[in-house]
């Protein structure tokens, strides 16, 4: 868990926040990053518009960027862990360059690699990922102070004119579900959900 003094943010729970997000959704796309992030997305209720990543650590935001560019009229959410984002910090600058207004990114920050034994990340306690995002050119980036603030930021992002990034401090609890892993089924179901593929 990070403990940056500048942050006065409540430590929340990933599954609870994911449920709060999913409750608000209709036909929006959600890209769930590797590990606990997509396990909680799976547990929050299966939707065809969800893409679950069980590999490719760090690529949730770049995948979401591709979807957001391909489907500019659809809102695309991307959920990513802090450890994963650290692997691909450069993508924040890439996204800031393209600036798709239909992209909402959420960083679930517990400062640890929970799934591999809760080892602290190199960023834990001193790297402020929202400050990194702002400095990368994503001006509409902020920490959610608590659950209500998270919901407010999600709703605000739905009509934003620039990409949104929301940081949430979360606890060290593991994910609550176990995503079914067949990659081609996950892809096909998502593409049906996006209306770009018809079932056979």
């Amino acid at each position, binding site marked *: 868990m990070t403990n940056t003094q500048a942050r006065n943010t409540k430590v929340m729970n990933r599954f609870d926040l994911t449920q709060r997000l999913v409750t608000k959704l209709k036909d929006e796309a959600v890209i769930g990053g590797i590990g606990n992030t997509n396990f909680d997305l799976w547990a929050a209720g299966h939707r065809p518009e969800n893409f679950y990543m069980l590999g490719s650590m760090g690529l949730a935001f*770049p995948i979401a960027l591709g979807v957001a560019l*391909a*489907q500019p009229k659809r809102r695309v959410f991307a959920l990513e862990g802090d450890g994963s984002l650290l692997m691909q910090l450069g993508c924040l600058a890439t996204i800031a360059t393209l600036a798709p207004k239909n992209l909402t990114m959420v960083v679930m920050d517990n400062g640890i690699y929970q799934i591999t034994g809760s080892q602290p990340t190199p960023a834990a306690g001193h790297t402020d990922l929202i400050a990194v995002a702002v400095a990368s050119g994503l001006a509409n980036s902020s920490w959610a102070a608590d659950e209500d603030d998270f919901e407010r930021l999600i709703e605000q992002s739905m009509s934003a004119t620039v990409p949104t990034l929301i940081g949430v401090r979360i606890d060290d609890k593991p994910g609550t579900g176990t995503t079914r892993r067949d990659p*081609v089924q996950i892809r096909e179901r998502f593409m049906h959900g996006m209306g770009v593929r018809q079932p056979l």
Partner: protein
Amino acid sequence: MDQIAVHQDSATSTDWPVAIYRTLKDFGVAQLSYVPDAGHSKLIKLSHADRAIKTTVLTTEEEGVALSAGAWLGGDRAVLLMQSSGVGNCVNMLSLMASCRFPLLTLVTMRGEWAEFNPWQIPMGKATPQAFEIMGVTVLRLDNPDDAEEVISAAASLAYDGDQQVAVLISQRMIGRKKWTKETH
């Protein structure tokens, strides 16, 4: 940029990037991402000038692999441009394309082969075909400018229609001998 003129030009030995661009247009490519290379500069310019292609400059090649996946998920065809030095960066992320059976079309300008003067470029250049092949990517070579349309078209069919991951290695000989920068003592 006069796009009509570009489309009507016939490819010559010096304007193979135009032939590539035209072939990508014929295949309906709607997203192009790249880590720049001098050998790709003309194609990059053509892409930026084309409002029908969403063009993304990347910080690293893995991002482009992901962008190609996301584009396909959203119904777009994508192409990824890089230099051979970037191929090693992608290796783990090529799993994403193989697992989910995402098409990947990547055009790679080669370093470390024909008349290479910089020893730092050579190991990755020499390992480029194998780096793709160990991850199941089909490797095609483009050695002759006159073959640009045919090779890119074959690669695009294999990728977009055959659901394969395909890399076209564009020969360093085709791009032209790099100008030596004299080392100083």
